[in-house]
């Protein structure tokens, strides 16, 4: 497969992955990952392994626990040569059992192979939501 262009990296992060997360669209989210992908929450060293195993379970927990999830204010460092994109962004979530909104300033590092996420690393500014 020829390398994907710069805009592909921004689009998969914003228009597919985080759009899917914000809309609780599990299939859209999981389609961004390779089957053997890993997602690591670095600030708590929590590792979720496998698109249809650990990563799916993590998102089921996230979606079940929150009635509103929003990611925005993105600034990207996208690198076609190394097939990677690192993104800074704000997160707002409202838990199911509360009306108060929680806000985070997070970053993710996405490493891709052939257009899908192979390894994802998450840094969170507060308590880990991705348990």
């Amino acid at each position, binding site marked *: 497969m020829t390398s994907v262009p*710069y805009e592909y990296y921004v689009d998969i992060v914003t228009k597919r992955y985080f759009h899917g997360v914000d809309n609780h669209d599990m299939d859209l989210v999981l389609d961004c990952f390779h089957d053997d992908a890993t997602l690591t929450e*670095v*600030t708590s*060293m929590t590792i979720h392994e496998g698109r249809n195993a650990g990563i799916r379970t993590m998102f089921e927990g996230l979606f079940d626990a929150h009635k509103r999830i929003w990611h925005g204010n993105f*600034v*990207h*460092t*996208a*690198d076609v*040569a*190394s097939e*990677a*994109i*690192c993104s*800074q962004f704000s997160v707002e979530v409202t838990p199911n059992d509360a009306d108060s909104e929680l806000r985070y*300033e*997070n*970053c993710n*590092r996405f490493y891709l192979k052939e257009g899908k996420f192979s390894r994802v*690393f998450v*840094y*969170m*500014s507060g308590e880990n939501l991705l348990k």
Partner: protein
Amino acid sequence: MQYQSSLDRAGLEQLAIHNYFGNVDKKDLEAVLNCFCDNAMITVQTAFTTHAGKGEIRRMFEDFMGAYKTIIHKDFTCTIDESNGRITACFTAELEDHEGNWTTLNNTNFWRIRGDKFQEVYIYMSGENPLV
């Protein structure tokens, strides 16, 4: 804010990894500060701590360099966005205090370059913030 950078891919990596981290590890404060614009801002995002302007950045590095006997940054993986003047690196930081205790952190830095220096720096840390 989008800034105009004058650095190419190799220049961005030279600035962030060699001119900056190379001199942090050598505790060469003036060489470190020379990487920053006068009104630069450095934010430890995981701790919501911001240092604005070279005066505050100098004070932060004086305290940091004084607090640790040994400072090592290594195992860099760089992501470079040349057309937008941005570079990100994940790395391991190993810090030895004056009692011989070692702290290891797995961090990620984001740098936004204006001209040929840092205008904004964001640090995401895996552990407690030593840049206070």
